[in-house]
């Protein structure tokens, strides 16, 4: 048996959202395909994407899942859970006790399936962590909150979580960075998709300018909408262009250094790796060494999100991304 000496690579099945939604694969088929292509062994699964019984998991399904893992030789690394607070649109969020129980259900399922890490979300209010951390400890699972755009290390919500982490000092709590929060530019492929949807260059120029401005994402999206409508752009084109505000933010790539110590898992968010092995929008050459040199030995799962706007071959994109990560980590 070898011991981990640096960050490992893997893949989240979220990368294959197009193939999944169009029913090209069922779960056994997709796991076998990932294994056959050598894109594992470390895998992340979104409970509410891949598992029909979720948020609960029966003994029968858990046994079948473990057989599947044994057959494929894959390694369950992280199960993404969701902090669904707003179950009735336009009404008050569910009460704290119900939300805590909702998390416990999902953590139980993650542990039952053999995942050591559960990905949570900031929609879980920080004051509930003291109730959940001991339960995660009891289950032997680590709950990592995903630091996803528009959040980043310097965001007030991240800082509030960090203060609670210091206070609780629980081994069951940590960070899951998602690199989309520190994109250097809007991916060219995303702009191309907006062009295909009919967006004009003048709208995309406006988008690129506003996206770089400081401020909250939803405010910037509102500003683009207002200006673009005034300039006569169609609402559908504005909607296509506005995707960038919701999945990407342009904070400093070096800012991740502040979170390395409590990082338990990483979402290697990406949009397209070119023939030279360079990602379109996210500066991996700056980001990955921070984690490698900071002593992170967990997994970076390749998370291709280009499926939000196009239908390129996700398997090929993941292959390229993993090759890029290995190259940078070995340098």
């Amino acid at each position, binding site marked *: 048996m070898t011991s981990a000496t640096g960050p490992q690579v893997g893949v989240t099945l*979220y990368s294959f*959202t*197009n193939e*999944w*939604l*169009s*029913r090209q694969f*069922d779960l056994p088929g997709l796991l076998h395909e990932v294994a056959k292509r050598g894109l594992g062994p470390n895998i992340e699964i*979104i409970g*509410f*994407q891949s598992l*029909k019984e*979720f*948020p609960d998991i029966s003994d029968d399904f858990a046994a079948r899942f473990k057989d599947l893992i044994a057959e494929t030789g894959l390694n369950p690394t992280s199960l993404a859970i*969701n*902090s*669904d*607070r*707003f*179950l*009735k*649109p336009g009404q008050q*969020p*569910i009460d704290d006790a119900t939300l805590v129980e909702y998390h416990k259900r999902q953590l139980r399922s993650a542990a039952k399936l053999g995942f050591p890490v559960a990905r949570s*979300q900031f*929609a879980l209010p920080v004051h509930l962590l003291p109730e959940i951390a001991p339960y995660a400890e009891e289950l032997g699972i680590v709950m990592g909150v995903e630091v996803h755009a528009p959040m980043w290390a310097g965001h007030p919500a991240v800082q509030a979580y960090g203060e609670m982490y210091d206070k609780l000092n629980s081994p069951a709590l940590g960070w899951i960075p998602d690199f989309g929060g520190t994109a250097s530019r809007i991916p060219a492929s995303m702009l191309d998709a907006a062009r295909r949807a009919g967006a004009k260059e003048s709208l995309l120029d406006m988008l690129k300018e506003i996206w770089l401005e400081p401020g909250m994402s939803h405010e910037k999206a509102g500003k683009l909408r207002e200006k673009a409508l005034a300039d006569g752009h169609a609402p559908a084109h504005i909607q296509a262009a506005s995707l960038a505000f919701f999945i990407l933010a342009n904070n400093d790539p070096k800012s991740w250094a502040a979170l390395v110590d409590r990082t338990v898992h990483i979402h290697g968010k990406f949009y397209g790796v070119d023939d030279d092995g360079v990602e379109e929008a996210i500066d991996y050459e700056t980001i990955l060494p921070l984690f490698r040199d900071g002593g992170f030995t967990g997994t970076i799962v390749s998370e291709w999100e280009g*499926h*939000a*706007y*196009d*239908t390129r071959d996700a398997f090929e994109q993941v292959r390229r991304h993993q090759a890029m990560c290995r190259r940078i980590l070995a340098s």
Partner: protein
Amino acid sequence: MLPVERVIGEEGLSATPAGLRLAMRLPWYRSLPFSTVEVAALAIDGEPVDLSEAQVEYDGASWPLAELGEQTNRFWFVRDSAFLVLPGRCLAPGSEHKVALTINVNPPYIPGMKRANPQTELLSVN
């Protein structure tokens, strides 16, 4: 159209003893509680359809569409179709009809976000 934008299901439109039955897909990347989904509009051959008596069928269960908002602990698995049943309405098997369906999703972890997903297809009645 991307797979995540699709709202008319692969099983299409069927004439059944219970009424007309239309397959629907959830236009999101993950399963959601039915309470966060709205069947916002349906038109057949350009005519808006009254949905006040419509039923939803999913995974062996069925309930009135009007009660969709109460289904906070019943999850629509993102890979499955759910079915909209229009009691008393029928169309000749084999006939073709333009079906326009709009489904709204309100992701329960993103307060205030509502996404409308329209799709129009020419369907042949099964």
